[in-house]
């Protein structure tokens, strides 16, 4: 099976298990410590089986972004280290904390646990894509967080804000309990949950008034 085949297989049916199998299938060192930051043309990146980067075009924050991507590269690493979109954070790199949450076709996803090749042809939105690039206007959720003074250390903030953005689209009239469930894939170690819920409720309120 060639690299492209395995990637396309992944694209047709994504799950955490297929994600892991995909990483293994392309021959990466699948240990807890391994990361991939291969740049094209760097000797060594080629020495590992199947780790040649391919030029693909991603749709990120309403822009077409041509980018060289390894077959086993996660979306989080592509965003952070190739597209310099460092607003997406890596807190655990293993789907435990949600700091890396982005929207893929409007759905909140852990970008640490998606292969970049899986999002070809799909719309990726990161924290950098929420503010209106022409007017500088904040998104509804960002505005709500600003008004409520949300977050402390804020390392989790981009992930929470992306999940809130998906939430108000899905359920613009949540109770605090429902909002907590919608945001339960994100961890805040400062435990600022009470204020985060207040931000989410304000975001929903602003969304309803638009």
């Amino acid at each position, binding site marked *: 099976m060639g690299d492209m085949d395995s990637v396309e297989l992944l694209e047709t049916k994504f799950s955490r298990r297929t994600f892991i199998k995909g990483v293994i299938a392309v021959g990466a060192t699948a240990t807890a410590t391994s990361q991939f930051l291969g740049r094209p043309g760097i000797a060594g990146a080629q020495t590992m089986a199947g780790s040649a980067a391919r030029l693909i075009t991603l749709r990120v924050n309403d822009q077409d972004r041509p980018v060289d991507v390894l077959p086993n590269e996660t979306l989080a690493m592509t965003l952070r280290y190739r597209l310099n979109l460092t607003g997406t954070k890596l807190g655990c790199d293993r789907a435990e904390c949600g700091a890396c949450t982005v929207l893929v076709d409007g759905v909140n996803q852990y970008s640490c646990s998606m292969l970049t090749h899986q999002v070809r042809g799909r719309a990726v939105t990161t924290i950098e894509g929420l503010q209106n690039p022409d007017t500088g206007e*904040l998104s509804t959720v960002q505005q709500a967080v600003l008004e409520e003074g949300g977050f402390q250390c804020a*390392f989790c903030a981009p992930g929470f804000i992306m999940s809130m953005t998906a939430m108000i689209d899905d359920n613009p009239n949540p109770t605090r309990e429902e909002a907590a469930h919608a945001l339960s894939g994100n961890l805040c170690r400062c435990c600022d949950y*009470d204020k985060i819920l207040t931000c989410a409720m304000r975001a929903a309120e602003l969304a309803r008034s638009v």
Partner: protein
Amino acid sequence: MAEKLIGTDIAPPDLIAKITGRAKYSEDFRADNMAFAKILASPMPHARVRRVDASRALALPGVLGILRAEDVPQRDGPREAVLTDEPHYEGEPILAIAAETEQIAAAAIELIDIDFEPLPFVIDPLESLRPGGPNAYSGGNLFSDDAWSEIKWTAEDFAEIDAGRMPNAEAVVEWSKGDVSAAFAASDLILDEVIVHQSLSHHPMEPRSNMAYWENGKLFAHVSTQSAQRTKYAMAGMLDMDPEDIVLVAEYCGGGFGSKISGSTIMALPAFFSRKINRPIMHRVTRAEENYIGRARPGFQSWLKMGFLSSGKCNAIDLYLVEEAGAYGSGDNGTAGMVADLTYTPQNMRFRAVSIYTNTPPKAAQRGPGGAQIISMMEPILDKAGRELGIDRLEMRMINAPDADVSFGPRDSQLTSVHAKEALRMGAEMFDWAGKQSLSGQRVGSKVSGIGIGLSPYTAGSRGFDGLMLISPEDGKLHVHQGIGNLGTHSIADTARPAAEILGLNWDQVEIVWGNSSRGMPRSSVQAGSQTTHAHTRANHAAAMDARRKIQEVAARTLGGAANAYRMDNGVVTGPGGRMTFAQIAARAIELGGEYDGHTLPDDIHETTVPAATGLAGKGLMGVAKDNYGGEGGIYSWVAGFAHVELDVETGVVEIKEYVGITDCGTVIHPRSLGAQVLGGSIQGMGMAMTQRWVFDPQYGVPFAKRLYTARPPGILDVPPNMSWGAVGIADPQSPVGAKGIGEPPVGAGAAALTTAVADAMGGKCLCRTPLTPDIILAELEGRTRAHGRLDMHVG
């Protein structure tokens, strides 16, 4: 002057950056030609590296070099180095590889041929204290006066321990006050308990990733750290270099909670490696690595004897703590003893402790170090006494909590202010303690309710640091130079508010300068021990008073009249001779020179403030001063936490239904941020009480709970969707601003509110152990034998 800034909700100026993704944490910086480092970590709890063959790793295309223990400073004794050839815990960094990509570096680590000699290890301090028990270090289990020794308890001591009694064993720390045995003889009730508080990781959201590079002999270090100015000096010490040759960039910190106070040991790795191979080095720390090197709160194994009079007054405490010091030491026990004496005011107390090295990951202060543990351990015992004496549990706290005349600890320390009872009263009212009595033990289906209270003090201030600020001729704004770190508490902005008020400025006329040491940082406290709000509202107050005097003098010298006749408001000075804008004042200050623009500095500012102030001289009107306000006594804040829980007696799962936290922390600067500290800190305490712990395999000395899902910090569904908080709001009389810190005390309050509420749901039965995991609770409810010994540490 109108109090328009103190006590209002103002979003911190960095919030827009935080919510748009523009805020740069240390791993978000890039340098040209940046290479990546990966570490090889010890697979054993104690070992010696016998042989390393890195030839295959170094031959891998793209590999740039190796950093070994011999490349970094090593010190004798239990003193952590960046890399070591004798690891004292599983996960300790042995060596590092740098490569063009992180993938290559990781692959090269796998190609290292390394041979370890396994050495004896111990993970439970009590095991190390047994006769003939193993030591964590080859030299012993105790290090003092720069030498190793061994402390072993006797077989008789362990016979007492095995019988469930406090041993009369040799202690390293010991103090007493009053007449303890006479007091116990006079007690109407004596409770004798064995209590275990387990160790738990800090796990900040941002792992301690760092990046560094050198240019023309200068080190540019991008560091994840709670503090800033002090971290620069810590880094200089580690590299043995002139601090002024370091540009420390620490704009944001993704949480520390005590684990990144002056940065961390590993922060020097990119600096050393970059110097060796002459390339910028990014070292990304993974979550699993963070679990090992990212610090943990030390656990306690303890014996507690508390005596009470029939009135409910605690009249005697005898407390013995065994502290797990990990690989590099820990001193939480001292504060634990102080906090016990402060909270229950027995007047007669004996405190003994040993802190024993173990081959477990390094321990460090974790939010409320010592205090949070002891409060979560002792509050259920106070409740037990209340039940036996027939006294309401709130009343027990009102009877025992200190008043303003308190004197506590071995040196009879005083406090600047204490309003613990006001916090209890406010909390009882907001929670409806009286009305909720009927919930206690009430069963609906399989769920039994319990209510609890935790009263928790902690240090909340320090004195004598410097403030530095500049009014710029270009914009007329006040630029407050902060040497404190931006660790998420908003103190980076909030401590500047008194300065703005003194100078009559609106908040949009203030710029906070922070996060880059080259921009000028005054001598600051570390951002730990909840010092910052108190210490730096004072320091900024002092510097603003200096600026105010200079503004008046510059105006008088320019326009005529008496200096003190000039008033300032909204960036304009008005007086007998007319008016000037702050921009004009700043330009005139530069013309006048001397002290006005910082060319002459006060004699009493700290030597490390001088280079920062000198670098800003001539750029505007400078306010610079040391906090000379003085004061006597310890500065402590308090939180009273009230919780209602439901314990499912079929599953052992505890659900938190309601929580109220009330603080005494002096004047409230920023209400919304304060509420976040009170509730966030309380929830951290709830995690400590309910879910978070280390679990070790005792045979091999390696941990099982390594990641967030196994160490389980609280998630958003673990807490009620509505929580309440409040503040007593009485100013501390010894500060010109009146504010005290708040970071630490809520942790013990949240933890103890749960340990007491769970005990209440179990009919007053104290499990005397944290965390209160469902299996431990169920075993107790079902009368089964526990799966572990009473004093065992590191169990699930």
